[in-house]
């Protein structure tokens, strides 16, 4: 063992500098050319930073599209999910409560039309997206509160939908923050 100790220590020090130091420094330098300059991509609205493109934020007002439930209260100082098991009775009760709340705020929606992703917590607690179904199900409520024709809102949702990659791979998504900004900008 002794024969290998000094080479081990010296090689370790060299590799710490190379892999722990130079490698991320090089990447951070390149990242200056990337969107967000490597600091994360921010969204600006009316000349003010209103959040990060990829981080969900809360919209409690019924006049906005609401994101998926978060177990970290939409604060990206941390991240995480509920880790509740499929059959956990407490968990099922909380889903039931979310369904009931949704029904109260969206009386025009049938229970069978509530998409599951709107009443289940995301993995990160920061899921910035909605599926088309989860956005469209909120359209009647917002249309009524804002006095906009539902058809116009559906168009807005469609316009803000990012289709699957190349139209072929993955699932369509809608960024809630951008959708709500577009909603505010509607005449």
């Amino acid at each position: 063992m002794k024969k290998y100790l000094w080479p081990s220590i010296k090689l370790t020090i060299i590799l710490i500098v190379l892999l722990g130091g130079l490698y991320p420094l090089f990447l951070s330098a390149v990242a200056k050319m990337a969107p967000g300059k490597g600091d994360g991509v921010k969204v600006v609205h009316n000349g003010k930073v209103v959040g990060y493109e990829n981080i969900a934020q809360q919209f409690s007002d019924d006049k906005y599209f609401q994101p998926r439930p978060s177990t970290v209260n939409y604060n990206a100082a941390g991240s995480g999910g509920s880790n509740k098991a499929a059959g956990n009775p407490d968990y099922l009760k909380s889903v039931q409560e979310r369904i009931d709340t949704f029904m109260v705020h969206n009386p025009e929606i049938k229970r069978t039309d509530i998409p599951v992703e709107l009443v289940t917590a995301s993995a990160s607690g920061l899921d910035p997206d909605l599926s088309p179904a989860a956005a469209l199900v909120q359209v009647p409520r917002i249309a009524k509160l804002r006095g906009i024709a539902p058809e116009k809102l559906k168009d807005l949702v469609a316009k803000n939908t990012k289709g699957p990659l190349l139209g072929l791979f993955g699932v369509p998504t809608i960024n809630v923050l951008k959708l709500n900004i577009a909603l505010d900008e509607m005449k």
Partner: protein
Amino acid sequence: MNTAIAGVIATYGITLLLAWPLSRYIVKVFKGDKTWLDFMSPLEKLFFKISGINPKEEMNWKQHMKALLTINLVWFIYAFFVLMFQDKLPLNPDGNPGQSADLAFNTAISFLVNCNLQHYSGETGVTYFTQLFVLAFLQFVSAATGIAALVVVFKALKEKTTTQLGNFWDIFLKTITRILLPISIVIALIFIFNGMPASFEGKDTVVTMQGDTVNVSRGPVAGFVAIKHLGTNGGGWFGANSAHPLENPNYITWMTEMVAQVVIPIAMVFALGLFIQRRKFANIIFAIMTLGMIILLIPSMQQEMAGNPAIAKLGIDQAAGAMEGKEVRFGAAATGYWSTVTTIISTGSVCGWHDSTMPMTGLMQMLGMMLNCLYGGCGVGILNYYIYIIIAVFISGLMVGRTPEFMGHKLEAREVKIAALITLLSPFLILAGTALSSWILVHYPDINWAVKPGAWLNNPGYHGFSEMLYEYTSSNANNGSGFEGLGDGNVFWNVSTGFVLILGRYLPIIGPVAIAGIMASKKYVPESAGTLRTDSLTFGAMTFAVIIILTALSYFPALVLGPIAEYFSL
């Protein structure tokens, strides 16, 4: 066909397309042939010169293992102390505290052994200094350790009779400079241009549209996530791992991370065939591994896409599948695929929480880790498979009544004993650990640990048992994923899984290297008509049967108490 499934198939297809050229490249590197990265050569020579290493000195298998264990010990001591005192070191913009001794013990070992079980959250439990200089560093070198051990076995299998199996330092350093580092840079650049943070800026504070003040954790994420996957490590920069929208911003990064974590394990299988010039032998191994993956994958994806039957009873629309603990941008199909891949190879990163997946999916995840050889982690997957081959050769030998031979060498009592011990080690560690934690939970629920045993389960009933079973399975497999609801942030889990991690890492590396080293030093016996052909489909099926029988016998009772009972009670 829907686009969610098409995305999964395309991702696997891309992996195969890249694995083939990569395997040819890997073989060139370890045979010492010319490659386009030869400009690294002066740098490597300089490193060796400073370190006082002669990279041309041939080692036998024991010398290889001594070098490997010595440098691993150095890393452990370094990591342990730096993690404990990280609060006193620079690059801590968020002011995070030092780790307690038991947590530092667990974290250091966990990253040292390529597992990345994380009993802390990335946002608060570590600093930029430790993320980069300890954790990312270990992610590189632990992957290189596994690959180096496998290359020793490659060399042993290739030669007729030899004790000279190359130089550990040479193989190890080239794995980093020629394979892991260059590919990681390419992957990280893809991430960076898809919006993943890479700067050293600390936590940001923003005021949202409706006026809430929230924080956003950031950091040099991209480089970390690249080696996290390429080296089958799996430890996340953020607590939410690859489900975090800054650690996995879109479908392109999803595909990249997914390809990155499987490409080396698959390429190493092809490389085996090329290196020892037995392509058919390697192709059959690849076929068996792929078959095993598909058997685990199909029920996982089906269950996740079908949704939670308990929620179906609530009468809502479950078209999206089981979305608890999943992200919209990946969806149920992709998350199901990820959960299988991350458990059969030893990555253990997640893009959706395994604790919230369906019981059958959980079963497949645990089986993937119990087998731990369907592609498997960087290097070590094939080492695990090699043990099963030895057992299969031995049993086949008994069946036909001949002294078993493998690759032109007699397989004798000593090698079979080592293989048997390694095979028995996993069930022992997993089942004894689970039994111990269950016993403590029942008899001493109120011990004054940071998390009391009575409170460490996040879910009641069968699933609670699964949380403990999963934790030890993941530790033994050096996987690192978890049923993360488990309150594992106390001295019991930190220490007990720490020891399982060490044993589950080093013995399954030393065992196969020892067997291969001993066999290679024996007299070469040319193949004859009576030799068991190990490159036939029959032998492939035999190995597969051995794997299934051993796994079923070892784990079936425990799995019945956990995910299977949960499935039938849902």
